[in-house]
Every structure is written in C-alpha cells, then in structure tokens.
C-alpha cells in the first residue's frame, strides 16, 4: 500500500495588493527587471540630485545685482531682474500696462468661453478679443501711442507670432483642403503643388524667402515690416499643414454624408460648410492642436531672421556686460516656459482625443 506523505502546508500567497506586491511585480519580477530598475535608479540619482542642488539648494534667489550671485548654483536673480525683458522684450516701460491688460482680458475671455454656450458667440467674443488685443499692443488709435514692432519681443512676441499664425492659417488651410479634395483637376493640382512644396522645405528657407525675396516681389515703396514678413511666411507655412490635417478629417467623412447633402439640394458651399466641415473639424481637432504645438515651437525660428522672441531675448540678455555668464539660467528658464506651454497643450489634445473617441463609440 502506498504511503502518502502529507505535504507541508503552503503559506498563503503574499498580499496580492499591498506595496510589497506592487514593488515585486512592477520592479523586481525577474533578474532582468531588477537590473533595469537598478540602472534606472542610478540614472535618476545621477541626474536629479545635482540638478536640484544647482537649481535650488545652492541657488541664489534674493538680491538685485550680479554681485548677489554668490552661490555655486544657479542665480535666479538674473531671471528675476530680466523678467520684464523676457516677457515683453523692449516694449516701452510706460506702456506695459497695455500688455498686462491684454493678459487680464484673456482671463475675462476664458470666463466668457464658459459663459457662452453657442460656438457662434464664442467665435464672436474671441474675434472681438483679438481686435482689442491688437489695438492695445500696436496702438495708433484712441490716443494710444504706436509701439513700433521692433520694440515687440519676448514671450509676448512668441505668442503674437503663434496666434497670428494659427488664426490666419486656419481659413487658408480650410480653403486649400477643400481645393485638395475638389474634383476640379486644375484647382486640385494647384492645391497639391502648394501643399507639397511647403511641406517639402524647411521653415527656415521660407523665412529667408519672406525676409529677403518678398521685398523684391513688390514695387519700390511698398515695404513690409520685418515682423509682418515673418508672419506672412509662418502663416503660409502653417496653412499647408492645417490643410493636410483637415484633408485627413474630410477623408474620414463617409460619402453618404456628401450624397445626403446633395440630395436635400444644398449648394457646394452649403454642403461643405454646414455638413462636411463641422464633422471633419471634430475629427481633426486633436491633430490641429498638435500642429499648433509644433507652430508654437517653430516660432523660435524667427530669431534667425532677427526678431526678438523669447529665445532671442535670452541670447541678448546673456550678452549684457553686467550679467555675463548667466546664459545657463536663461536657457533653463526659457526651456521651462516653452515646455510648460507645449506640455499643457499636448495634455489638452490628449483629453480632446479621448473625449471624441468616446463620442464615436
């Protein structure tokens, strides 16, 4: 007769929730995993403590002059003293209230967005805001002194370039996208050529073109402001990308929608603007936000043609003879600003994407 030995009682499995279990399954499940965790920790240890030490522990925060930079770490006094330059460029001190009120009005505008329910009202209030902002920044009427564009700079210029780029490229992009999707061969090939040309060359060559060649295109006496030339270049550039994104949206609309619109007797423009475009835009919005992010990043290129955007202001202030050797602080500050803007927008785009995805289901 076989003898059966009683096996030892197994311990209950360790907690399948708990911290220990989590650590075990997520960080130390296999030898390879252990090695990778250790490597990861080593990298973090190599990067983070020195950075914290430089940026915080050893850094100077208080003071007003270069001589207050005594620590081994960063000297944020520099950023503090140059903050106005970073934000507003060489905009005249006594007119800064105008820029600040543009910012204040933006907050009002955000509330207005919550308040207005219909797209139409939102659109109108935003347009009014843009006009008021332009008048405040540029001046020229209501007794506001004109501030020439060579005084515009810093983050304000970056935002002006980005906003103008997106606002003006949007309608152009829609028209080009329609043309691209049109069944009229000449219109289509003109639009395809435009899109492929712009997307095939780097922005910098378009900026060179708008700053060096554009003046040759017009008779002597018609001159464009340096900023305006850059804006024209950026808008034409961005329009091609917007057009491609909207085309993607248009393609996702089923032919049934076109046929239905035709069947109820809508004209081409009624069909496109009332039926197709709203649906296409909804699909395209996350990608449009993505395009806006890359436009925001691309605004830095204007420094190559001699405009003083946020990044250019760092280079200028770092060359200030009373604050030499501060470019690291400047670059880190600007990096954080740009990153915060772009990251915020990409989060927002992710959110939108999820929102629209669930709607489709």
């Amino acid at each position, binding site marked *: 007769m076989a003898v059966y030995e009683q096996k030892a009682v197994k311990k209950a499995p360790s907690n399948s929730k708990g911290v220990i279990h989590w650590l075990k399954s997520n960080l130390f499940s296999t030898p390879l995993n252990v090695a990778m965790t250790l490597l990861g920790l080593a990298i973090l240890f190599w990067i983070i403590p020195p950075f914290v030490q430089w940026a915080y522990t050893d850094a100077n925060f208080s003071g007003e002059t270069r001589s207050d930079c005594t620590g081994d770490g960063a000297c944020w006094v520099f950023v503090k003293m140059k903050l106005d330059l970073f934000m507003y460029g060489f*905009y005249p001190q006594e007119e800064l209230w105008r820029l600040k009120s543009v910012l204040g009005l933006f907050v009002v505008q955000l509330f207005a967005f919550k308040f207005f329910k219909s797209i139409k009202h939102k659109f109108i209030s935003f347009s009014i805001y843009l006009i008021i902002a332009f008048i405040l920044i540029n001046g020229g009427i209501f007794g506001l002194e004109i501030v*020439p564009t060579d005084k515009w700079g810093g983050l304000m210029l970056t935002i002006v370039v980005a906003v103008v780029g997106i606002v003006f490229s949007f309608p152009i992009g829609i028209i080009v996208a329609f043309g691209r999707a049109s069944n009229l061969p000449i219109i289509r090939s003109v639009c395809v050529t435009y899109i492929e040309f712009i997307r095939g060359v780097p922005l910098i060559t378009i900026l060179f073109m708008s700053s060096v060649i554009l003046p040759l295109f017009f008779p002597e006496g018609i*001159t464009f402001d340096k900023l305006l030339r850059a804006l024209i270049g950026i808008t034409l550039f961005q329009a091609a990308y917007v057009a491609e994104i909207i085309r993607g949206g248009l393609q996702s609309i089923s032919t049934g929608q076109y046929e239905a619109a035709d069947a109820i007797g809508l004209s081409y423009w009624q069909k496109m603007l009332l039926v197709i475009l709203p649906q296409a835009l909804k699909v395209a919005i996350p990608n449009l936000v993505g395009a806006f992010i890359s436009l925001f990043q691309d605004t830095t290129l204007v420094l190559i043609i001699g405009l003083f955007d946020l990044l250019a202001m760092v280079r200028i202030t770092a060359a200030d003879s009373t604050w030499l050797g501060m470019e690291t602080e400047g670059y880190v500050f600007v990096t954080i600003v740009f990153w915060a803007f772009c990251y915020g927008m990409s989060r927002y785009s992710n959110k939108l994407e999820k929102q629209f995805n669930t709607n489709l289901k």
Partner: protein
Amino acid sequence: MTKLAKLSLAAIVLIGLSATAGTLEDTKKQGFVKCGIDGALPGFSEILSGGKYVGIDVDGCRAVSAAVLGDASKVKFISLNAKERLAALQSGEIDLLVRNTTWTQSRDTTLGLNFAGVNYYDGQGFMVRKDLGVKSALELDGASVCLQTGTTTELNVADYFRAHNMKYKTVAYDTNDQVVASYENGRCDILTSDASQLYGLRTKLKDKANHIVLPEIISKEPLGPVVRQGDDAWFNIVKWSFNAMVAAEEAGITSKNVDEMKMSSNPTAKRILGTEGKMGANLGLSADFAYQIIKQVGNYGEVFERNIGVNTPLNIKRGINALWTKGGLQYSPPFR
C-alpha cells in the same frame, strides 16, 4: 493680355510713380527718418534695456533727422543683420543705413547704392586671449577663427592666412552675439572683425583684461552711411549732415558753445551754422540744419568721445579718425 493684367500693370506704374516722389519729401511727410543700424554693437549702435539707442552710428541717424526734421529724436531705428542690411535699403524699408558698412568698390557700383562718406576709418584686426602668449598675427598658424558671416571679414581672413601660408579653421556665425559667446566659451582662439568692433565686443567679455587686440590690421575698412542710388538730393543731405559734424569740430563749434558761435564774427562758423550764406537752402533744408545737428547731437569729436572714446569702456584713441589738421583722415570739404 487680360484686363486684369492691364489693371495690375497700371497699378504698378502708379505705385511706382508715387514712391519716387523723393526721399526728402517722404521723410518730411512721415515725420521720421527710417534708419538701419546693427543694434547689438557696443559703441556703434546698441539698445540699452528700456529701449534707448546709443552709439556713433545711432548719432549719425540722429544727425540726419536733426538736419531734415529739426528734431534729432525723430528716427525710426531698424536693427538689421549683415545679410539683410543692403536689401533693406534697396527695397526702401530704410532710407539710410549707418551700420558699420564697409565702402568697397563693388558695393558702391553694383548694388544700386551710394556711400555718402566715412564716419569711421577702420581695419580688420584679431583679438586673442593674453594667456596664449601670441604677440603677432603671424604666430596664428593652425588657429581656429570665430567671425561673423556676411561681411568682408571672411574673405580678408582667408586672403591673409593664404598669403602668409598659414593654416586656420573658420567658425562662422550669423550674429555677433553668437560669435562672442563662442569665443568666450573657447570654441576658437581668435576673434576677428573690424578693429573698432573688437574693442566693442571686448566689453561683452567676462574677463576683459585677459584679451588683447593684435597690432596687425589686415585690411582697409572705411565705414560710412549708405543711401539708395538715384536720389541725389537725399544723397547730398546725408553727405553734408556728416560733413557738418566734422567741419564743426574743425571750426571749434561744440554743442555747448554753438549758440555763442552762431552770433560770433567767425565767418566759417557763421556759414556752417546758417547765419550767413544759403547752405541750408542749397540742400532743400532750413538754414539752421547744421546748427540743429551740433546743438542736438554734437560735433564729430563729441560724438566720437561720447560713444567710443578713451573715457568709454571701448577706450579707442582718435588715431586715423582724428581731424586732418591733427594727422588723421577726417576731412570735410569746405562750407562755402
């Protein structure tokens, strides 16, 4: 030809005509002088924080504004890089370029531009770190050279090293700020540019005393104001606005004593300042155009000393920029 094309042709002709009314009239109508400068060159043209412009080039623009509009502050300054400057003048974006631009034969003859004089006689030089122990440019074999692209500098340096059979490496940037930053970071051994700029750029360095400008001057760089070709009235105005500053120094007129000199019995001073003769009217300006320049901007010597002279951080001696009576090259044809 389609109707549209005809219409646009007509439009071109119309616009073209209206644009050639003359720079003087246009400037008076606008109420300001459109003047191109560098904007990032200490001593020559620099924007101070707060947006104030200073420098010898800036004062050149101011002088023309004082002469034409009677007010030296009526200038619209436009900062230009080396690449844009001549195109900006050609297209009419600016009417006057005072941006340490070298007067060369080919620029004067092939670009549709005219040089109206020389406000600073310069030459290309080299700046090195003292601790390299270099005393002469001939010891620079194998060095790396930082310079600004878009200038005659690049060609001069290539010629110089080739002529002396030395090797070198160029590192060219499109802004002076990047040139200085890279030199400071040790990317190159030498910074080369017009000697005056070297003194200006040196003030942007951290350890100013540790850098020397070598004695060799390898080129002639007469820097002066530039205008478009084809508008002789404007050309004359710019030319004589600059001459007035030199002539005033020679005649001993300064911004401080200009009111006394105007009333004095000195005939030269009286002619310059417009109390005698028709110097202003000859140019289509008011009689006291030179008075306004001297009163509001100063004579050449004052402008020089205020912006780049020995009491400024640049610490440049008058040298060849002294008056001809003191062994220099600055010379104004007579006001007569």
